[in-house]
């Protein structure tokens, strides 16, 4: 499975599916569904950010929602003060990245391990939540944008075409932009993973000692991936603020961070497609639960999480992949056992394929 998953073929395939969806869906779906697909795509970007730093960087961040929220709030405050949205868009990526860099410095250069890192990231997201939650008074403003406390900031102006402040994006334009961002992020991360930097990041996750002995400063690489993860989460936050035209402190909350972790677990840790699948599945499920009164949403989500951790620990995507490989392998063996000559002829190209792919 890993061979195909890591090869450029699977990346090209995912990209092709993504582009096809982007071109076909607006013509097929009605406005409402298009808007729903947009929010799924936005959250998928967020899921991918955690999937990257956790699955490939080995960093379990309990507070990825902090960067998401920072991106949303930065965009909202900046666009209400600046007017044209190009600057705010870039700021919404830069500010969370900066914050991630500082936080990452504290964590990695302090040589904190797994659990402690989990606690610190959790604590940071709680601090942000508590602080922003208490800014309801009218005295809490940055420029002309009131922070709003628990209510958040409503009526956020939408992104506009750079340079033309009155040319605002329509829902369909937002859909296109979000999808493009998702595909760019996916492609970029895939290329990063197969590059030299990416290999060091993955090696640092597997065995930090060894990487250090080989002469690489693992902390720098971890800091880099953490910052990148923060930047991507900030991008998702900016797009979220545009989708809903509001932002509120609950984005910083524990519940939001928990959701992101659940998406990655359910979808598949160690893949980039996994978090996307997990995010869409869980988001859809949550919306459906809201339209019926029989099952409590916590009950359903809790059961899913427990079941997945116990029975499907690797997540949907890798498990489906293994199932497929198992089925494919069986058919292959049946074919091979019919004639030994055919079997011999098969192994030679198989070996060549192995050499090519690695």
């Amino acid at each position, binding site marked *: 499975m890993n061979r195909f998953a890591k090869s450029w073929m699977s990346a090209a395939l995912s990209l092709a599916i993504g582009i096809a969806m982007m071109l076909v869906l607006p013509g097929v779906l009605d406005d409402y569904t298009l808007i729903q697909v947009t929010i799924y795509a936005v959250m998928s970007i967020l899921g991918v950010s955690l999937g990257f730093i956790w699955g490939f960087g080995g960093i379990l961040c309990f507070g990825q929602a902090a960067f998401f929220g920072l991106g949303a709030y930065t965009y909202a405050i900046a666009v209400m003060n600046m007017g044209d949205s190009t600057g705010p868009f870039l700021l919404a990526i830069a500010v969370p990245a900066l914050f991630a860099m500082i936080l990452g410095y504290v964590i990695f250069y302090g040589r904190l391990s797994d*659990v402690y890192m989990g606690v610190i990231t959790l604590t940071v997201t709680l601090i942000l939540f508590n602080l922003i939650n208490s800014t309801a008074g009218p005295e809490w403003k940055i420029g002309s944008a009131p922070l709003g406390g628990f209510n958040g900031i409503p009526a956020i102006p939408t992104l506009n075409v750079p340079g033309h402040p009155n040319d605002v994006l329509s829902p369909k334009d937002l859909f296109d932009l979000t999808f493009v961002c998702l595909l760019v992020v996916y492609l970029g991360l895939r290329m990063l993973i197969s590059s030299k930097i990416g290999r060091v990041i993955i090696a640092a996750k597997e065995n930090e000692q060894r990487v250090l002995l080989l002469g690489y400063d693992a902390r720098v690489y971890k800091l880099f991936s953490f910052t990148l993860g923060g930047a991507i989460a900030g991008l998702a936050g900016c797009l979220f603020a545009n989708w809903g035209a509001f932002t509120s402190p609950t984005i910083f909350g524990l519940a939001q961070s928990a959701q992101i972790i659940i998406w990655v677990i359910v979808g598949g840790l160690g893949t980039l497609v996994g978090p996307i699948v997990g995010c869409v599945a869980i988001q859809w499920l949550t919306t459906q639960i809201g339209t019926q009164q029989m099952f409590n949403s*916590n009950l359903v989500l*809790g059961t899913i999480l427990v079941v997945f951790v116990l029975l499907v620990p690797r997540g949907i995507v890798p498990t489906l992949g293994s199932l497929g490989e198992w089925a494919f392998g069986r058919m292959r063996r049946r074919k091979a056992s019919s004639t030994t000559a055919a079997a011999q002829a098969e192994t030679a190209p198989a070996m060549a394929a192995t050499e090519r792919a690695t």
Partner: protein
Amino acid sequence: MELALVIVIQVLYAVATLFIISAGLAVIFGMMKVINLAHGEFMMLGAYATIGAIRLGLNLWVAMFVVAPIAVGLVGVVLERLVIRRLYGRMVDTMLATWGLSLLLIGIVTSIAGDTTAGVSAPLGSFSIGAYSLSGYIPVVIAVAIALALAIRWVLMRTQLGLIARGTMQNPDMANALGVSPSLVYSVTFAVGAALSGLAGGLLAPITGVVPTMGAAFVAKAFITVIGGGPAILAGLVGASALFGAINQLATFATTPVIGEVALLAAAIVMLRLLPQGITGRFFKGSL
């Protein structure tokens, strides 16, 4: 002068509360290295068990000190057998599985009891210090925390059970070779931790609104206190609750409850940066 005394009592109260709510988590994490994120929900179950027992006519104190711990201890045993047992050694997976359990428990209780806030009034009226009157319940909580600390120390140091538990935690294979069954020890320890959480929930029932989601407010603080305490269970717990509880309450007095919370969280980050192993990683090393 009176205000100073009131502040001291309130600080002791905050420290005691933090100690009590973290005790269950500390036992489970310190002994088994399992991060139980369903800790808040164990407390919630304890609170509901207390209220249920009172509705059935039991005395408040019996409900709090007997019914709540036993009920939640049993739940702990069941969950340990079904879920936690399969995940030993996989710290991240236990975190996630217990997170799932916490959502599940919230969902179950909501479906049964509904979301309406339940509760019971605080017993023991009030007492006065000069112009200030305080709830009579506050000294009770402080006394319980002290008693709990002494009890934990006694069990671990002076009883056979405590000896076996400590031995198993230090070296399970050796304990196994000596005839102790580690899985039994783990079950009992988890049950004890759960019972302590249930007790905490019962104690809190008179002073907070009892809703299925009440656990969320406590689990983060308990988590931070336990991790900040470090490897030694009791010393770490006492040290961390004292430090964080004091900072929290003093900041709240000086400004607002929100700044108090933020101060506690910020102190945790600073402390972890300075002492990555927790308080007892550096001070009181090797103590209980």
